[in-house]
């Protein structure tokens, strides 16, 4: 799980152009939107694309993204649950 989180952080930094940020600076439990990483609605769409492109996971209803993308922890847990399934 820790390996997945690290990889996910690296992919997010690259996909969202979080210039100057390192995986170590992203708190696993911190909210990704709003006060956390400060992501916006376009970033949310990029995360949906990232999941599909890198993990072959398709989110059919973008509204589900709110819970899935709450933090690195929730996102990694979602990916893991889909991979096991």
């Amino acid at each position, binding site marked *: 799980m820790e390996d997945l989180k690290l990889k996910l952080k690296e992919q997010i930094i690259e996909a969202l*152009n979080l*210039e100057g940020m390192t995986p170590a600076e992203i708190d696993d439990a911190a909210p990704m939107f709003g006060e956390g990483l*400060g992501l916006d609605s376009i970033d949310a769409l*990029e995360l949906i*694309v990232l999941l599909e492109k890198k993990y072959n996971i398709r989110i059919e209803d973008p509204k589900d993204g709110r819970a899935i993308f709450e933090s690195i922890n929730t996102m990694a847990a979602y990916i893991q649950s889909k991979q096991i399934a």
Partner: protein
Amino acid sequence: MKTFVQHFVHIHAQKVFIDGVLRYEETATALDFAAFIRNVYKYFEMQYPKFYKMDDLSKLAFVGAELLNVKESTLYKSEDKGIVLMNRSSSLYTDALHQASIADKSDYFPSPAVFVYTLPNIAIGELCIRHQISGENYFFVQSKFNAAMLTNYVALLFRQRHVQQCICGWVELNSNNFELFLYTVEQKSENAVKSAHKSPIFASLSLEGNHILNDTDNIEKLYKL
């Protein structure tokens, strides 16, 4: 109605000129646009995290507008500030990036962050957000810098009292070929750049007092600096 050039910025050939003075020159050779504009952003200590998410055309426009010292624009209400830009390649470079991401049906992953920049006036939108500009805005696409068109259009905006201050200019980018020439125009001359400059080019400009009049000849000359 007389209007005056307040400040002007020129970015080309890996150099940055502000009000006609060389303020930054890239020392590394054969640097691509992305590396060059990032260096300029850092050199002038700009702080705007969204910069990194913009497409290249918007990054160029953003950096140019930051260097215009539009802090003075706080003198005007948001709705009295306008922006009129022009270029040759529209948003073609970003359009091509988007096209590349959808060309292969077996690898079809369009990026929303790229797609939203597939219009040149998105660059204007970025500047409007940054500098609280909600007045007239327009992006012309022309085969080359057209000082007369720009000057006449902006003069009309001032005459019809649509703006009291306007960011104007040429923001061209196509891959690693780029050029920016931005200037601010306003009716008041108090803030306008004084022509008592060391550069000999100022001797050939039309002036009122020590200030540069916003007319086609002056804009052509400033563009060619």
